[in-house]
């Protein structure tokens, strides 16, 4: 790692100066210039200078290096949510590129610092990652590389089974109620109608008391069920209740902690990239660009916002949405009068010149995540202006085909895709399924099936943690089914819908 050359330091100072003028609020930023090899290394590590030893970082490095040497891709920028914020610049990039990256990074930095989703993340994650690396290395020294690495594989296979929202709200406890002694029931807890003592045997006859007693017993029994309510943080549940030895538990805890650290970035991909692109474009076009650089900048910019068919480019979409919001609030296109304006011409020319746009986008960057961002601001006007569509797989032609251009369908699809960061929702229902200490999970099916070969392989890994058979309830081609892996055999059982949950 080299210290930042003076000419880049000057650009950094200049960019930071403009950012403050625009009221961006960021952690101190350290820019580091890397050659492409080190850049690929750091990128393979997810932006961090060091991680625990694992082959998948090597795989990512292999992919990045090949793709770089074939000229297919090059990493422009990498930035870490940390205080101070670290960001990397690629050695040999043109000055235009470096300026752009610096602006982009500062806006990411502002987003990390201010967006609610990041409020609970560890701002000393660089140190924490290094600690994790040290701990895993020590475990490898004690228990062998193979054992630890293959258990990391198992944990990574489950790493998306977390509950990212649990850090913002109070979830019901996953522990069972303390044992109250189901045989001896405290008589004060039995429901009785209030009455005079001489009427007791008529108002609260013994049969009634008996009925109440058994109901109470059932209630207490069911509260002993583990977990009492479905648990979405499957990893936390496993850490607490799976029969793990101490190093297995330590590894699983590390994987879970890192998964929670990265979750907000997945929850805000569109917003975060949109915000960064919005600001670098502003800095470049209003302040930083030399006339001779304009064409080169335009060339790079068109690459960043390139839209391949069948994909959503978060840079482009986020940028366009932020600009759309800014325009709406600048022109006063919100609120009761605007919403209820029936005259299309008036609506189209609506401009109250209220100039609230800038203020609004800062508010949005603080309080929204991708799901709420799109739910609130992805409007019919926006869709009509920016041309969106939904597409589906067509079996007959083995290709993806545009199926709708309706606003409602598009928005519905988008929100479904973003819910739970695009991961299927899986919950623990029962840790004592069939009364045989089997694990029973449910896939909350919102219209899209699981990829079955992957689901089976994942169940195998889950069983390695739980040690007893594991069951997953899901829907496959419209049929409710339970997939089971008992450690040696996969089975599938169709069930009727009213089999209860």
């Amino acid at each position, binding site marked *: 790692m080299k210290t930042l050359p003076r000419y880049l330091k000057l650009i950094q100072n200049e960019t930071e100066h403009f950012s403050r003028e625009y009221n961006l609020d960021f952690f101190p930023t350290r820019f580091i210039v890397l050659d492409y090899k*080190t850049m690929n290394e750091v990128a393979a590590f997810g932006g961090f200078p060091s991680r625990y030893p694992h082959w998948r970082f090597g795989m990512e490095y292999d*992919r990045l290096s090949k793709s770089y040497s074939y000229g297919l891709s090059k990493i422009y920028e990498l930035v870490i949510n940390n205080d101070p914020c670290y960001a990397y610049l690629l050695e040999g990039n043109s000055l235009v590129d470096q300026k752009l990256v610096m602006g982009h990074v500062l806006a990411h930095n502002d987003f990390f610092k201010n967006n609610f989703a990041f409020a609970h993340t560890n701002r000393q994650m660089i140190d924490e990652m290094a600690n994790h690396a040290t701990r895993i290395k020590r475990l490898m020294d004690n228990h062998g590389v193979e054992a630890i690495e293959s258990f990391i594989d198992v944990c990574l296979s489950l790493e998306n089974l977390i509950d990212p929202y649990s850090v913002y709200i109070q979830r019901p406890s996953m522990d069972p109620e303390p044992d109250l002694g189901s045989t001896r029931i405290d008589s004060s807890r039995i429901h009785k109608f209030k009455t005079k003592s001489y009427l007791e045997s008529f108002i609260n006859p013994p049969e009634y008391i008996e009925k109440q007693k058994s109901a109470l017993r059932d209630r207490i029994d069911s509260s002993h069920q583990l977990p009492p309510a479905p648990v979405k943080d499957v990893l936390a549940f496993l850490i607490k209740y799976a029969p793990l030895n101490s190093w297995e538990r330590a590894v699983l805890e590390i994987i879970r902690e890192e998964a929670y650290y990265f979750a907000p970035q997945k929850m805000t991909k569109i917003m975060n990239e949109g915000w960064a692109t919005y600001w670098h474009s502003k800095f470049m076009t209003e302040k930083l660009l030399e006339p001779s650089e304009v*064409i080169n900048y335009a060339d790079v910019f068109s690459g960043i916002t390139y839209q391949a068919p*069948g994909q959503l480019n978060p840079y482009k979409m986020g940028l366009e949405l932020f600009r759309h919001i800014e325009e709406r609030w600048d022109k006063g296109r919100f609120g009761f009068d605007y919403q209820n304006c029936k005259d299309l011409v008036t609506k189209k020319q609506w401009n109250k010149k209220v100039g609230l746009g800038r203020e609004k986008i800062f508010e949005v960057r603080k309080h929204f995540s991708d799901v709420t961002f799109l739910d609130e601001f992805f409007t019919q006007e926006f869709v009509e202006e920016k041309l969106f569509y939904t597409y589906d*797989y067509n079996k007959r032609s083995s290709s993806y085909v545009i199926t709708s251009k309706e606003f409602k369908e598009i928005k519905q699809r988008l929100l479904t895709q973003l819910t739970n960061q695009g*991961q299927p929702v899986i919950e623990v229902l029962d840790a004592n399924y069939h009364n045989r200490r089997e694990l029973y999970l449910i896939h909350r099916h919102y219209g899209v099936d699981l990829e079955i070969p*992957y689901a089976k392989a994942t169940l195998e890994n889950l069983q390695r943690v739980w040690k007893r058979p594991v069951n997953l309830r899901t829907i496959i081609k419209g049929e409710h089914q339970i997939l089971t892996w008992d450690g040696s055999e996969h089975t599938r059982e169709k069930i009727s819908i009213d089999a209860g949950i």
Partner: protein
Amino acid sequence: MSQKIDQDHARYKKIVKGKIKENLRKYISSGDLIGKKGNDKVSIPIFNIDIPRFKYSRKDSGGVGQGNGDVGDEIGKDPQKGGTEDGKAGDQPGSHALEVEFSLEELARIMAEELELPNIKPKGKKTVRTRKNKYSDIRKTGPESLRHFKRTFREALKRSIVSGNYNKERPLIIPIKEDRRYRSWKEDIVPQTNAVIIYIMDVSGSMGEEQKQMVRIESFWIDTWLRNQYEGIESRYIIHDTKAREVEQDTFYRTAESGGTMISSAYKECSRLIRMEYPLSNWNIYVFQFSDGDNWSKDDTEKCYKFLDEDILGKVNLFGYGQVKSPYGSGQFYHDLEDRFVETDNLILSKIPDRDSIMDSIKDFLGKGK
């Protein structure tokens, strides 16, 4: 410079190598890779390497896109047509594949490792050097055929904006002479090892399509390995029935001829090639001959001995004779060579009864590091 990632990278490579070795015979005997060159990327599905997760089935989910297009328009083909789908989910326990990219060279190395092929010690000195042009530079002058369109356009755009001629409504850009940019080259001198492989294939009527396919696959992998060992190797191809002729690689791999078999015709052509173009002191010469071993007559076989004795065996590093099994061929030629050249150590005989034995045959030929 050593990097932290090196250890992870080495682990990954080891895992992938292990997976490939498990299935190497399948990759090699399938013949899908024929026609690729050393640095070409090859995508190979590696089973059970990526980390499985609960995830949505992509085919089922579709998505949202942005841009022009109407309902019913196709926006992309499915790259994995006919891949594993849910239908047969029962048979393979949790099988899932990831396409990993390799260069053919890497694959050749893995094959060599698996077959324990030694590196080859070339004879002669690496004296021949060739100049190679690399088009990695941009200049302001050059021939029109090398004009770099994008760079030229960019220069023209800049000029027209600066000079105020640019019209937003009618963005017409006309490059003038000063705008033009041309690709240009740098000269590299690369040492050239002086090696040639001569392939001889029997294309007589008794060699069926499957026999030819086996020959193609085997020569392809031999070629890949030798290319890995020598830089700038040359390949020559001879096909024969009762007459022999030299052909292009493409023809070699595609020809379907028929007729009788006179092997001596090919040997004659081969020795002519060596004599005329590859003076022995400088050249490492490899000859691989493939046939079903059904020569026309005893007389012709005698002629063959003569060519081998006088013109070929003394000049080549290695003469490999691979005999594929065909329903019509007698396979006599193998025995003839075996009896006659029992003492000759640069003549290697190998039988290739079916596709699965291609690997073993490659090992027969190249296992001695000649």
